């Protein structure tokens, strides 16, 4: 499909007997913010390197921006790809500005744009300082600025929020949002699932070199049919009425922790449990319903794999 920026068909990568990527099929649409999650060693970084043409596939076919990931045509395509590696190494003896100008020249981007890029990632004041003196978060911001050189059409970001403080993470995703609005495709991996669950359009869960699940966060959650969690704050004498009322709901489990009660029930029993709780208005001070998080989904798929 022409609107797919990334097309992966049956991609395989072996390192000796190890199957780092084992028959991956994946399509990422233009303008999509796509997440790739998985345990350490699941094959995410290897897949990223294959997408960048850094590792040739042992088998299968990979096309990025319509090109196979080797040869002269892909060299041109690389001008439109920004990459932030997981282990970012920069040149300590250069200043932030010099670093960016060096990469800009290699990428064929305008070195004059480096100053505004540094401002964009919050390093405007540190641009003339040597990278040697940068904190981990500042290096990560500089690495991100490097990935943004030359107005890329595709960003491949491996653990991009490594070392960023909460403010930095917010600013980082704000920039990604702006880029996506301009049609830039973003593929990123992260171990901080709470951070990406509200931000990605779709995601793939990798395990042992394979795509175990693929879809929106909602679709993945639905597919697993994970139970719902209710968190209640009880009045001082609310525990006993709640216990008695839930005896008529055998699918719901109750856990009491002082004035806090946790109820877990299958998704399809949600309205029935809510009905029971509605009749206990004097016993309950407050109520929260928590949907399964991406972390729950991730752990759910881990249980399936076991």
């Amino acid at each position, binding site marked *: 499909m022409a609107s797919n920026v990334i097309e992966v068909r049956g991609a395989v990568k072996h390192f000796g007997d190890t199957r780092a990527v084992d028959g991956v099929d994946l399509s990422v649409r233009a303008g999509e913010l796509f997440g790739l999650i998985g345990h350490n060693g699941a094959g995410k970084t290897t897949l990223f390197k294959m997408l960048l043409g850094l590792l040739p596939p042992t088998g299968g076919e990979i096309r990025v921006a319509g090109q196979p990931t080797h040869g*002269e045509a892909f060299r041109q395509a690389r001008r439109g790809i920004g990459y932030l*590696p997981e282990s970012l*190494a920069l040149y300590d*003896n250069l200043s932030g500005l010099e670093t960016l100008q060096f990469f800009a020249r290699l990428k064929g981007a305008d070195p004059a744009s480096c100053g505004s890029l540094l401002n964009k990632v919050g390093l405007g004041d540190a641009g003339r300082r040597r990278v040697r003196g940068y904190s981990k978060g500042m290096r990560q911001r500089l690495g991100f600025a490097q990935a943004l050189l030359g107005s890329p059409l595709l960003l491949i970001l491996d653990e991009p929020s490594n070392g960023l403080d909460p403010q930095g993470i917010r600013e980082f995703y704000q920039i990604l949002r702006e880029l996506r609005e301009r049609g830039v495709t973003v593929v990123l991996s992260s171990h901080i699932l709470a951070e990406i669950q509200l931000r990605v359009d779709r995601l793939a869960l990798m395990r042992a070199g394979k795509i175990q699940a693929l879809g929106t966060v909602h679709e993945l959650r639905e597919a697993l049919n994970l139970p719902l969690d209710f968190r209640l704050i009880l009045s001082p004498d609310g525990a006993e009425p709640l216990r008695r009322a839930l005896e008529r709901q055998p699918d719901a489990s109750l856990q009491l922790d002082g004035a806090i009660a946790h109820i877990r029930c299958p998704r399809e029993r949600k309205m029935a449990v809510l009905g029971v709780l509605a009749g206990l208005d004097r016993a309950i001070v407050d109520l929260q319903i928590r949907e399964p998080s991406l972390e729950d989904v991730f752990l759910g798929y881990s249980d399936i794999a076991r």
Partner: protein
Amino acid sequence: MKTSVEFKPVAVIAGKEFRDRIRNRWVLAVALVFAAFALVIAYFGAAQQGAVGFRGIDVTIASLVSLVIYLVPLIALILGYDAIVGERERGSLELLLSLPITPLELLLGKYLGLAGALACSTLGGFGLAGVALAWKLGLVGLAHFAGFIASALLLGLAFLSIALLLSVLAGDRVRASGLAIALWFFYVLVYDLLLLGILVLSERRFDLGFFPVLLYLNPADIFRILNVFGFEEVRKLYGLATVLPATLASPWLLGGAMVAWIVAPLGLAVWRFK
């Protein structure tokens, strides 16, 4: 699929490597070392014969050859051994190769940048000494000295090429540095002893017609022959005329062999790096 070589990324990498060596004063330091040694040797080179002061271009170059054979290969190997393996170990190689630059362009850029730094040091250091000695050298002497500088540069470029091959082959920087030292030890200290040993042990029992060719397998020996064959006295001093026929001592042939020593390891490095 073939990929063309673009000049711009080569120039960007070469420029960075060169500027790095200028900024950290590597070029200046090595140039000063070369200049100081050259001047000291020019003045005290004949001290063993009980004389002090400039004693002529032949004696000066004969002394400088010994110095250069020890110093230049070592400096070139140290300069280039971590060019690739260092980037790989730090993790910056992956980022570089994700950009529109091919491994060949990266390697060429590294080589040219480092070669530029080495050339500046060699030309600057020995050139400074040449300027200081110019009034004593005369035109012919100056021409000989210029030839010596050019051959010293070729020697450095050959060992730099070997260093880049090591840098591509080695798994980590420690191994690369160990290999670099071992190679220096072999080519500069061991190789000639081995040849001498073969000569002595053979006691004319074998046909040693191939023997002079063995000298071509060591860039340090090529450098030595290039410099000493021009001077009758020095040639006798080294005893080279007894083992090397004049046909094999042609400066063009020797120069060509040195260029081969630059191109071949670099070519192997490119092939392996791809």
